[in-house]
């Protein structure tokens, strides 16, 4: 199965959200087998279907001052924050060809993240009943997905850079009283986002038994889709 990789770089949430939906349609109609969208977002707060707005702890004025927009979106889960220094991965996978099991898919997302963090020397784990990836009692990666026609979108966010963790204080992440952490904080050294990105692409390809990662198609495929997404 072919998996198209779309590296959107640093991008506002909204066009990336539209892009996901376009990639979803492309998978649904069989134009592509699957897609892996990777990006970093400008600061944004998203509220999932189960979100409680009280989990945003600051006023709209503060958010506006900081340039943080808020979106109510269709993914599962509560409130989360995205920003630069965090890698967000949106796998558009067709579970009809993998396994029609949401629980299995969530565990796969955790497993890939845990293995990728291990490559960087971080020991992380699952916590029963608390989807996501944890280093001790601190959360390093958050997960929230949507499944339509057994095709997935939304996905995983992994915190890498220390600078941006502060904005998590503006919310109660996932509606839980927890502390967030990141790769750099755990390792005490600089991490190049590209290194983690490449590792995740490799692992997503391997773990879900996809074939060649058609990175060469990037420029060709991304441009028209992006144009449409921005309209």
């Amino acid at each position: 199965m072919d998996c198209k990789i779309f590296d959107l770089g640093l991008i506002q949430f909204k066009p990336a959200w539209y892009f996901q939906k376009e990639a979803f349609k492309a998978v649904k109609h069989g134009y592509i087998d699957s897609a892996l969208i990777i990006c970093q977002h400008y600061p944004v707060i998203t509220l999932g279907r189960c979100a409680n707005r009280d989990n945003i702890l600051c006023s709209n004025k503060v958010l506006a001052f900081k340039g943080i927009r808020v979106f109510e979106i269709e993914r599962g889960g509560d409130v989360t924050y995205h920003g630069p220094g965090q890698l967000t991965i949106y796998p558009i996978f067709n579970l009809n060809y993998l396994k029609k099991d949401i629980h299995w898919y969530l565990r796969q997302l955790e497993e890939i993240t845990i293995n990728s963090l291990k490559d960087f020397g971080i020991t992380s784990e699952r916590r029963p009943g608390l989807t996501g990836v944890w280093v001790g009692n601190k959360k390093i990666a958050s997960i929230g997905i949507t499944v339509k026609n057994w095709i997935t979108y939304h996905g995983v966010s992994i915190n890498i850079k220390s600078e941006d963790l502060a904005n998590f204080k503006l919310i109660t992440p996932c509606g839980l009283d927890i502390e967030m952490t990141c790769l750099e904080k755990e390792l005490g050294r600089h991490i190049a986002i590209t290194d983690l990105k490449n590792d995740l692409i490799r692992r997503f390809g391997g773990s879900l038994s996809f074939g060649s990662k058609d990175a060469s198609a990037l420029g060709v495929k991304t441009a028209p889709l992006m144009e449409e997404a921005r309209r």
Partner: protein
Amino acid sequence: MTKVVLPDLGEGIEKATLSYWYFKVGEKVNEKDDLVELATDKATFNLPSPATGTVTEIFFQEGDTVKPGDTLAAIE
């Protein structure tokens, strides 16, 4: 009459919250249209309509807890 039954969503997922009806009773729906959205703590799942017809009955409302095997609606 076609029953809309909630399928197994995955091992260990025993219940979900009905989060959104895309159609109301009396409305026409096509097979494979998004009919109803369910939410678990970290995932939302859209159940497509199993048939083309009119939604004649809805057995659960938004916010209700449902489990695999439950009949959510009827289409005629």
